[in-house]
């Protein structure tokens, strides 16, 4: 059989563009009980090779968001582009084949087909999408199962192996067609902690190999192991800088902060305009110079306004700076009791403009 008869794994040449781009995603479910809007105008960009966790409470809309990417569900409005291709216009059947080639999906409940052995489950996407010559498929599937530690169980039916092994096999299946993107919806949600750790390690390895991974989870510690966290709260995406800055904050507060935050872009060398102590500023990107040169920025502490604060002229560094201006009354409870000096060289700092001392 000439090899060109078989589809090749998908490769993206992103040139720095996002591999996943979602704009204005709204999803409204209609039922007898009325309408429920689960996603409310979400915008997301995910760059190639990012290991992204999607977190949020049950019912927050995180799985719905992921379903928009996998094409399992379609938004009420908005657009989804993957690799620069708008996937929303594809018919269901074409979508299935597209999905099989571009995305690997791992489900919470493994979803291996019980009538096929593990290796057959892994070979199935190759059959469906006509990827790799048939003679190569078994070898490739065995290689993937070996990679997830299941070479000894390859010819067993799913019912004959443990849950963790089933999930590992499901990961191998997701990799069958070597898709550039892996989507995992609560992949450890049905596993004990030891097994969950093993599965997580597989994802970390894959992330290290450059796969773009979207990982839906409830588990905060697992989410912290990803290099980007998307928090969905009440159908809205919370500003990622806030999620990183206030990891202990409640999702609803973070959402309120996210809604109340005012972005402030400072060109290089530009002075921060005179502000109020009623705002706390969060540096999302770039550096600020206080006074004559870069200095540690003082974090407001305790009851605030009398605490050490940045004084003097504040201006953007050579690369400019992106700031978030947040209502101080909302942020105040989140701040540490003692002043904390941000370490120089870190891009994330927050501060309050205070009165000049003396």
């Amino acid at each position, binding site marked *: 059989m000439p090899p060109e008869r078989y589809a090749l794994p998908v490769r993206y040449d992103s040139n720095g563009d996002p591999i996943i781009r979602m704009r204005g995603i709204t999803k409204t479910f209609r039922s007898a009980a009325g309408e429920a809007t*689960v996603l409310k105008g979400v915008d997301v960009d995910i760059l190639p090779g990012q290991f992204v966790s999607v977190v949020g409470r049950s019912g927050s809309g995180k799985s719905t968001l992921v379903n928009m990417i996998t094409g*399992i*569900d379609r938004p009420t409005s908005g657009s989804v582009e993957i690799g620069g291709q708008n996937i929303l216009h594809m018919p269901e059947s074409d979508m299935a084949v597209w999905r099989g*080639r571009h995305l690997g999906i791992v489900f919470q409940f493994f979803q291996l087909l019980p009538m096929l052995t593990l290796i057959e489950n892994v070979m199935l996407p190759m059959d469906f999408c006509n990827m790799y010559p048939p003679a190569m498929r078994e070898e490739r599937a065995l290689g993937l199962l070996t990679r997830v530690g299941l070479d000894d169980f390859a010819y067993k039916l799913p019912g004959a192996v443990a849950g963790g092994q089933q999930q590992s096999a499901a990961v191998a299946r997701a990799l069958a067609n070597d898709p550039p993107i892996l989507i995992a919806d609560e992949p450890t949600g049905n596993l004990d902690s030891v097994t969950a750790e093993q599965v997580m390690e597989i994802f970390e390895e894959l992330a290290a190999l450059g796969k773009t991974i979207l990982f839906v989870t409830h588990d905060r510690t697992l989410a912290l192991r990803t290099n980007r966290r998307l928090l969905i709260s009440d159908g809205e995406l919370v500003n990622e800088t806030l999620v990183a800055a206030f990891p202990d904050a409640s999702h609803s507060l973070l959402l309120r902060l996210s809604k109340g935050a005012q972005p402030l872009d400072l060109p290089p060398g530009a002075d921060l305009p005179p502000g109020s102590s009623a705002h706390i500023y969060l540096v999302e990107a770039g550096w600020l110079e206080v006074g004559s040169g870069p200095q540690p920025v003082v974090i407001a502490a305790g009851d605030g306004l009398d605490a050490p604060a940045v004084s003097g002229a504040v201006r953007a560094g050579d690369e400019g700076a992106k700031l978030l201006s947040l209502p101080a009354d909302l942020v105040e409870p989140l701040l540490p009791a003692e002043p904390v000096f941000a370490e120089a060289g870190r891009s994330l700092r927050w501060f309050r403009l205070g009165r000049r001392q003396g």
Partner: protein
Amino acid sequence: MIRPRWHKIFSDLLSHKGRSLLIIASIATGLFAIGMITTSYVILAEDIRSGYRAVNPPNIQLFTTFFDRDYLNRIRKIDGVRQAEGVWNTNLQIRNTAGEWEPITVKASDYGRMGAKEMGQPHVLEGIWPPDEKQIALDINRLSDAGAKLGDTVEIKLPSGVIRRMPVVGIVRDQTIGSSRTEGGFFLAGIQGYTNIDTLRWLGQPEGYNTLYVRVETEDQENKPAIRAVADRLIDDFDKNGYPVNGFITHLSSEHPNLPYVDAMAAVIYLLGFLVVFLSGFLITNTFSALLNQQVEQIGVMKTVGGSRGQIVAMYMVLILVFSLIALAVAIPLSNKAAYMLLEYISVHINFQVIELRFVPASSILQTIVALLVPQLAGIIPILQGTRISVREALSGAASNQNETTGFMYRLLAKFRGFSRPILISLRNTFRRRGRLALTLITLMLGGATFIATFNVRNSISSYIDRLGRYFLADVNLTLDRPYRLERVAADVMQVQGVAMVEGWNGAFASVVTEDGKAGETVQVVAPPKDSKLIEPILLRGRWLMPDDRNAITLSELFLESYPEIDVGDTLRLKIGMDESDWEIVGLFQFAGRSSGLFAYVNYDDLARETGMQGKSTSFRIVASDTTLDLAGQKELASRVEAHLSSLNYKIKDVGTGLSLGDKTSQGLSVLTTFLLIMSLLMASVGSIGLAGTMSLNVMERTHEIGVMRAIGGSNRAIITIVLVEGIAIGLISWLLASLVALPISKQLADIMFQIIFDRSADVVFTLSGNFIWLGIVLVLSTLAGSAPAFNASRLTIREVLAYE
């Protein structure tokens, strides 16, 4: 407000319309089959008897050469005779639309002048009755052979060669055709015409009667010995008055000539009726098992909120009852209608009149009983199983999938490596629900096996008829209107191009003389020349006639039914014409059983001596020099022979072809195999509904997996293929099993048919055509059965089936 539990029942019924329809269709199909079969059975059994009785059939038919009206009037005074009629039966020829001459039996009587309802009165389908002078009415049975219709004027050729033109004033159905048993029965009977007695002279016939019809007193009409006693008195009277009795036959008033065939059908109906009840039970069991399987989680929920097992069982039993009642309401009228259509078909081909389409209480009662009992019985096991599981099992879903992937076949299939994964999914899915598969296979297998068996039975009957054809090996059978010298006819016929050989045969009707000296049943005695090459008998006992035999006779197997003690070596006394003679039985041969009357073969010379026909004959059998002549070739030769003899002024009564005999018989008996085919298709439809149900249920249960397949790249085509291949796999397995099970079923059905038609057990001649046709049907059925579920499966969106948030 309706109580919540009953609300749940109605909600189950209405919210899953597809599933509810499937369950109702499953039950209704079974009930339909039962209703159709029972209604057909009852109406068939009733109407063939009461319908026949209604035409005033003669209890006695007595065949002689001639008697007049005066003698007929004297006969009417004989003790026990309630009604007597004289009929003149004669064989003439009618020109069909192709211009060929076809034999026609014309009956002439005092139709319309008897002052009482005439005997065997034909049922008028079109036109008027009775026909007046020089008018003719034609029977519907072989009307197509004549190609005539009401209002046409047909040409009738007399033995003298004169052609008469007669307007067709009526199309009738005469249920007495075949009742004399001397014409080879209903299926060998040719075109039948009826005219007024006053027409006879115009047709070149004597004005009188050669057949006497007698009805005995009403109270004796179902009493065989009483009828026979009257027949004996009639024969004595004929003897005393010098009228030769060529034969006679007695019938009960309800004894339709084709009753044996109806009995054959009834036996088949009875057998299949049982099967259908079982199949319907399997179908219903399958459906309810699946229903309960889908309800396991809800059962768990009901148990957690305090529902007792008894309450839950009662709820589902009520649900089944509702399904059953809806199915019953659908099945009763439909089955009644279908039964009537089937009866219409049978009645045309078996020559009886369905009195009316009517409600058959027995059928509806049986349907109701089955509707109330079978689904409940079929449902009780899955219901008890379903309600026995613990709440934990129910809510975890563990119970629904247990043992799905652990069976032997499943493990065996897990070792199959050569197929693509989608095909493996189909094959392994086939064996996931082993109980369901088994019931589906049984249903489809029995339907298929009956279907295949039908072809084997048909082939066996056809082979047997072909075999019987060896009693009539000639290419052309020539009947002359009066005896001609053998040598002369042979010499003349041999002049016809393509004729290789001519044999002059002889024949006569005789009566068996019983030990008490009375005339017994009528025997058709056939006398081939002693060195005849044109007969290859099937011997049961003894031997065939030898050239040196003197007054040796061989008898057909039907003698054993009438005279069970008879055997080779015995002497049989026959009355031929007015004389009695003794014949030594040298052999018994197999013939057409009850499909024909008593047959006997003697050497030509022996019979000629008795009938005074030495060196002469009316019957000649002609063999073509081309040994491979087909029917058309035989017809052509027959035309040449007829033309040649006509040019030599022979008076020809009939020229027939050898193959048309078997052809007519096969055509006639095809009603039985067609009927079997209809019955097997009915069973096959139960089977295919079963398969459709199984496929739908399988897909319903596997929507989740279909969603997963979609998620990992399964296109519409892939999903449809997986579902279709599973259905086809089930179809193919059922076909293999059906092919095996068809072997004993073929023997069983063929034995029933043969016993009733031919009075012997069957030599089954198997044919693969049934297997291959069924293979085609089962593939189509499987594809159809799978296509709706497959299409539905392909329409499922992943979100629906994986039920996210």
